[in-house]
């Protein structure tokens, strides 16, 4: 807090600060080109999905034995990454760490985008997507899928509410600071701000509801990834049949979510010229947090592989040999090394906690996180209890098809679109909270006066 404050000139008034943070709310050519590019890519991917709808799920590489492929690993990755909203705003924010303020909105936008799209990812894996409604008509509470649908929807709604509530004061500021922006945007700000005036009573309600949301989001976020891990852990298959899958997945989710946050931080800082707000200090702090969660994840990895590896029970042994020394060994060790162990070591060294090295490390960790989901989902199914015999060769080994890869890219494009649009429509750094935390407004009663300038 103290360090970041030095980056701001002390004489900058509240008005200047607000103006500065509203700078990014502007549709420009670059944004239009970017969105155009994303839209065209999305259309191509959706065409691939059309082919899948027309011809059947068989256009993907999945077959009777490996029947969950990259659609499911993508789904797990999406749910995992969305947990960063809870980690940054909930855990870190609630513990009174004020430095995290400029990062909360980025984290919440990531959470909303990934949680919203996760539901679509799972639909792309369904053989009869048009029967989705059966889940509500004939739903059986015994099935973890029902639990997953419930908690992911809840998490999405809470994340959206949290994002919105913390945005209300900023929307009110927007009324005076959106000259030259489209009329429609001004109108949107006006409606969404719900007539916020910054009165003492309003601030009280806002703070209270924010805290309620932050407390609520923690168990819900924990449950979304725990339940997602149970989709695997409730089966009898060696490699999935594990009692630590819940915490193993949750700790892994923090790693993938934080690496996504690092990449987003770097991007927004650079493109939106927010060097004064997202400083080296923030990167340093996030790096330390990433080290912490990575160490926890490493600990769970050790448990997950070392304990069955020590015993080498009949069916576990087949799976572990393939993973650690067999067909998937290269992928497994690359992911563990480049995506987890080396990043931990590097981030312990100070020069690597600067923005650019962090970006590169973040990309490695994020890619590793995606591939780790693949390692968890796919190899287990290649070695069921009973041998795979009298089947065509494409039933024995799984390899994703081009159509399948395109369909898996579609949700990533959608996430980028949601993040881009939200980051364009609203200030990416919480304005009001920054003003309050910087001490430019001392007290709730003073806000009332300042708001009338």
């Amino acid at each position, binding site marked *: 807090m103290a360090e970041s404050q030095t980056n701001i000139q002390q004489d900058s008034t509240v008005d200047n600060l607000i103006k500065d943070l509203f700078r990014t709310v502007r549709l420009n050519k670059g944004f239009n080109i970017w969105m155009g590019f994303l839209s065209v890519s999305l259309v191509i991917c959706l065409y691939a999905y059309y082919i899948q709808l027309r011809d059947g799920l068989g256009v993907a590489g999945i077959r009777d034995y490996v029947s969950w492929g990259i659609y499911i690993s993508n789904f797990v990755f999406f749910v995992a990454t969305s947990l960063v909203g809870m980690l940054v705003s909930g855990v870190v924010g609630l513990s009174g760490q004020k430095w995290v303020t400029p990062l909360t909105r980025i984290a919440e936008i990531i959470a909303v985008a990934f949680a919203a799209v996760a539901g679509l990812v799972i639909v792309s894996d369904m053989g009869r997507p048009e029967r989705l409604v059966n889940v509500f008509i*004939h739903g059986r509470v015994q099935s973890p899928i029902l639990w997953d649908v419930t908690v992911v929807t809840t998490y999405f709604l809470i994340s959206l509410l949290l994002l919105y509530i913390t945005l209300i004061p900023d929307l009110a500021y927007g009324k005076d600071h959106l000259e030259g922006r489209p009329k429609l945007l001004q109108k949107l700000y006006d409606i969404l701000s719900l007539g916020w005036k910054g009165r003492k009573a309003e601030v009280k309600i806002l703070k209270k509801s924010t805290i309620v949301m932050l407390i609520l989001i923690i168990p819900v976020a924990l449950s979304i990834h725990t339940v997602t891990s149970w989709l695997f852990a409730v089966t009898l298959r060696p490699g999935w049949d594990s009692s630590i899958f819940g915490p193993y997945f949750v700790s892994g989710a923090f790693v993938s979510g934080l690496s996504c946050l690092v990449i987003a931080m770097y991007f927004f800082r650079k493109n939106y010229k927010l060097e004064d707000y997202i400083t080296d200090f923030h990167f340093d702090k996030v790096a330390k947090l990433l080290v912490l969660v990575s160490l926890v994840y490493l600990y769970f990895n050790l448990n997950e592989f070392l304990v069955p590896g020590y015993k080498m029970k009949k069916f576990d042994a087949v799976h572990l040999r393939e993973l650690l020394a067999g067909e998937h060994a290269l992928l497994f060790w690359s992911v563990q090394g480049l995506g987890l162990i080396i990043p931990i070591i590097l981030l312990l060294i100070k020069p690597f906690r600067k923005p650019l090295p962090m970006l590169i490390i973040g990309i490695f960790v994020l890619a590793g996180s995606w591939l780790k989901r693949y390692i968890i989902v796919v190899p287990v199914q290649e070695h069921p209890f009973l*041998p795979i015999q009298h089947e065509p060769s494409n039933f024995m080994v799984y390899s994703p098809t081009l159509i399948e890869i395109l369909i898996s890219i579609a949700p990533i494009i959608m996430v980028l679109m949601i993040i881009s649009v939200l980051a364009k429509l609203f200030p990416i750094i919480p304005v009001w909270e920054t003003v309050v935390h910087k001490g430019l407004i001392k007290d709730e009663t003073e806000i009332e006066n300042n708001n009338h300038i």
Partner: protein
Amino acid sequence: MEDESKNPKPKSRREFVKNIGLIGLGGIALGSSLYAAKHFEEKKRGQNVKLLTADGKLVEVDLLDVKQLDVDRLTNNQERGRKGIPGKSWVMVVDLSKCRNARKCIDACQSAHHLRPEQYHINTLQMKDTDRTPAYHMPKPCQHCDNPPCVSVCPVDATFKRSDGPVLIDNERCIGCRFCIAACPYSARSFNWFEPKDAEKDKDLVYDVELNVPQKKGTITKCCFSADRLRINQLPYCVSACPNGVYYFGDENEDAITNGTTKETVRLSKLLSDNGAYQLMEELGTKPRVFYLPPKNRLFPFSDNTENEKKS
């Protein structure tokens, strides 16, 4: 009517319409009653028909008492498919010492259920338990577990456990999530990744849960213990097709079990205890309904029988 229309009174039009309406109504009533009477005349008491009830009994009723039930045949099939045959508890016994991998069971099954060659409700696997024990062929249908992992995880109750034993699937309800494939330790389930083999031919068939035909794109298919055959008191397709006497099938409650090839009926409990029967991976707690008799005293050498595979 002519008079009515000439009437110059202002109220006349309403009056006229009213009368026309009355006449019309009367006409319809008369006509329909005549028609009904004629219809009634055609049917006389004493004409009996033989009918098969839903639980498989043959009964005779008077034609006049037969009411056309306005039920959707699909809904009817779906409802019936979920009701077990009362008092029955079906089990299968597979004698591994007799299996020569003729694969006739697979052919019969795949043709009954309109499956593609790579879709197995029953498959024969070459097994070798240890380095020192010889290899043997193991027919592997769905184990119709009494504690079925696939049923537990199904989000929509598409796959279900029936009171008489079989685990069935309603492919009109299945959403194609394949959680059951992930959950099944016996790899007993198959999926319709593309349009099924006989999609065009089966277009007009009404779906039968007990046979799982027609197959549907994007849904699961699995061994039904030939529930449609059990309904009419017949042995399953695979059991009757075996030339080598591998399969026994019967009712646990009666403690009687019939060999599909020799049609010989024996005591189930005696067959199991005399031969050291076991269940496939019973340590998983799935409680299978298929029992295996160990591959002992085989009077023929083990062969790959790859020519049989090519044929099938």
